[in-house]
């Protein structure tokens, strides 16, 4: 690890932390561990579906479905 000899500015430290975060949460080997983050509740899925349905309705209003695009 290179040390350029001067104390790290807090910005450099922030940048390093953000770069580490990006890599550790987003990259690296994807392994399905035994303990995972549970995201959705059944109720929330229904909320999501309702929102999506209304967006499909909008598409129909715009006539895209009719044109078969």
């Amino acid at each position, binding site marked *: 690890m290179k040390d350029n000899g001067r104390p790290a500015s807090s910005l450099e430290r922030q*940048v390093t932390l953000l*770069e580490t975060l990006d890599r550790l949460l987003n990259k690296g*080997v994807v392994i399905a561990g035994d303990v995972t983050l549970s995201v959705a509740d059944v109720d929330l899925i229904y909320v999501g579906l309702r929102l999506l349905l209304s967006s499909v309705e909008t598409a129909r209003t715009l006539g895209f479905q009719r044109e078969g695009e």
Partner: protein
Amino acid sequence: MEGIYLYGIVTFPPPLLRQIVGLGRRPVFLVPQRDLAAVVSRSPLTLWPVDEDHLTLHETVLEELMSSRPVLPARFNTLFRTEDAVIALLDKRAQTFRSALERVTGKVELGLRVLWEPPGDAEESADKKSWHGGPGTAYLYQRLKEERHRSGLRATGERLIQEVQSLFHSLAGESRLQRFPTERLLLTGAYLVERDRVDAFREGVARAQQEFSRLSFLLTGPWPPYHFVNGAHDETKDTLGA
């Protein structure tokens, strides 16, 4: 109930050369399986808070190992119930781990971010003659103008990316690019570089900064090879890669 926290995968041997302290002050140890080993420590079976201390600790463990052997970093918060589960993982993916480790042997990852100032926004048109419609028409015509401006910007950006990439590509074995990740970022690049080429790469960035004075280059590293755990054929190919 205690389980196992996974930091990454390494080749085996060599065994651990010194004591390393991991999350929750637990000692790091290797779970070997033939020519591979998992780098682990015992841990409660709950996800660790994502904060500076814990992220830094995981990263530090990887860097300690990286100094003496190739490492494939695992994502943060990869937990297993038992050592047997870890061994099963090593068995199941032995081949892919082996080839990935071979690919990154003797190399480190360098990260590059390039800032740019995208040329100005589309100006408001003084000529509204063509719009006889109502607000809906005005909206769409304004959006159309913005989209045309965006295409022009994109073309300019792509040319810049090509020039930048051609500078760095020869200094690295492989690269992974992300184009226009944010409004101000032209490019994010990850480069797999031989250890003894890191200085040359750094000098290359300094030269690029001089040549492209309107861009800003941020080079970070050396990192464990986070972006290179999969082969290029496993993910979206970077179009400028050799």
